[in-house]
């Protein structure tokens, strides 16, 4: 039985740069293939033991302004911790964009020195150097890590090679522990920290990224990979993606 259930964390609070478009794109690409798809909202105060949540095979969480991230912070760390960890351990797909990517790390250090603890599922930390370092902002491109690009499933579903495109906009710089695999390697733009060329993080089927656009709208090959992984299938029906391909080629030339 092939069925996609998207768990959307904090839909109302965390949607800073069209991030919710990622869910719309996932749904649309499933529907075009007649794949049964549904979205469950996992909001503030909702209890993860609710039975609808256990079917989730793609978890999505976007980023928000500071005030919204503060709003969900306690709920995220206390109420959702074990649920998210369980999904990760059982190799479900998860994608975390920008602010939520940072919250999945060990901690976030502000420029005033204060430290905000994260969920700690990703062995990474983020530091904001204030005005001493410029904000990482602009069009960005990267090559997906070999674990993804060499995965036979990715090779089957990708019709756009192993590059991804997007827009990044973050003040914090993220650093990965040595044993942690980055999601991708930047070819244009800043990525995690504008120093080591890494972008995002990849752990089992969980991905953290700074890419907006939204990332799954700009990179339909990545979207399809996530769907295939969630369904545990080797390939997917090819869609008529003329517009997406044209958009992707145009984005590769952006400065």
């Amino acid at each position, binding site marked *: 039985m092939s069925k996609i259930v998207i768990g959307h964390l904090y839909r109302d609070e965390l949607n800073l740069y*069209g991030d919710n*478009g990622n869910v*719309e794109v996932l749904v649309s690409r499933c529907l075009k293939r007649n794949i049964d798809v549904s979205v469950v909202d996992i909001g503030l105060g909702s209890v993860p033991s609710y039975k609808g949540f256990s079917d989730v095979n793609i978890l999505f969480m976007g980023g928000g302004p500071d005030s919204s991230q503060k709003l969900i912070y306690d709920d995220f760390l206390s109420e959702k911790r074990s649920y998210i960890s369980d999904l990760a351990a059982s190799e479900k797909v998860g994608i975390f964009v920008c602010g939520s990517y940072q919250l999945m790390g060990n901690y976030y250090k502000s420029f005033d020195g204060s430290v905000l603890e994260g969920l700690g599922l990703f062995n990474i930390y983020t530091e904001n150097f204030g005005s001493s370092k410029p904000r990482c902002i602009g*069009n960005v491109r990267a090559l997906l890590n070999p674990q993804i690009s060499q995965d036979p499933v990715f090779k089957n579903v990708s019709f756009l090679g192993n590059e991804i495109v997007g*827009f990044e906009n973050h003040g914090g710089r993220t650093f990965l522990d040595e044993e942690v695999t980055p999601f991708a390697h930047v070819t244009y733009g800043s990525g995690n920290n504008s120093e080591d060329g890494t972008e995002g993080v990849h752990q089992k089927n969980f991905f953290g990224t700074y890419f907006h656009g939204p990332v799954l*709208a700009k990179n339909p090959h990545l979207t399809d990979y996530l769907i295939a992984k969630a369904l545990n299938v080797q390939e997917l029906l090819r869609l008529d993606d003329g517009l997406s391909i044209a958009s992707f080629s145009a984005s590769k030339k952006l400065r």
Partner: protein
Amino acid sequence: MYLISLFGKLLNLLIRSLGLGSGETLPGYLLLRFFPKALKNSTLLSGGSVIIVSGTNGKTSTVKAISHILRKREFSVISNSSGANLKSGVTSSLLLGKPLNPYKKIDFVVLEVDELALPSVLDDVSADTLVLLNLSRDQLDRYGEVDFIVERWAEIINLGRVSTVIYDGEADYFSGIFAEGASGFVDFNRYHRDAVSSKLKDRIHEKNLMAVIAALSEKGIDPAESLNLLEDFKAAYGRGEVVYKDGVSYRIFLAKNPASMNVNLTFPGLGKADFEKVLFILNDGIPDGRDVSWIYDIESNLLNKFCAGKKVYISGSRCYDMAVRLDYAGVSVTKQDIDSSITDTVDKIKSEGSKNVVVLPNYSAMLDFRKNVLGRKIL
């Protein structure tokens, strides 16, 4: 100051006659360059009572409507009607609007001011009336967050440089900052009944109309009279205005962020039968913000309903991003109707026997489109 104003006028004339632009920013920019505190000089205001309008969407229309009413009441008014709303543009408008006769007084100075430039303008100019419209996410790569702007606004208002603040009491981001009833604060929603009953829906957004009525009510012009004087009001450029080229009527609605796009897609003055084609133009220039992710914050079902049964054209530097977004919203788009060149798109629209086209451009796209169709960007 008189000589500087004269110099500014000559510079403006030069820029316009050479076709270099509207010349509405450079004179002020130069003045501020040499005299950073020039705006503090009250002779620049020519004795006028100052009304400032700020917010994310609707500034230009609101300023235009307020000025329209004041002028019809035979007050003399200076305003920055072209929408040059940063400090340099405001300074330019004052320079250019200053009467040649140095002894002549002006009754009102009506200015739209960019929401982030507002603190620095109010640093130098005391306003009689400050009209705060809506705030929403706009040009995120330049502006940061709504919270941030509200905080800056609260700070300046606490400085007491404004006599009356007119604001939207229904906006939750203002809650706790401005209190209706406190002296000097007016929630414009109290004029809801007047605005709703008016026949101006096709030319100005209801909330902005309430703000206009509230501002003028403070000046002793009652709501009924304001509405009366607005009868022959024409929509501001790019705010529902209609332009014609080669027998095609184009109705332009500036759609520069999710809020303005969603409002345009549900504009009460626009019936389904009023147009048969839609042209989206999306640019990623500096004044637009380089990040176009916001198009996914436009409500899909609104896009879908608006475009149902209409032929859709897409242009601008990010036309393919818009095409993909529309496709995900379920709007039918064909590749032949997508072209980054506005000139070629307008030619195609004409050659395909079009009559009524609604144009939804973002900021620089609107200027490019106007240039193409009218031969000039602004007025």
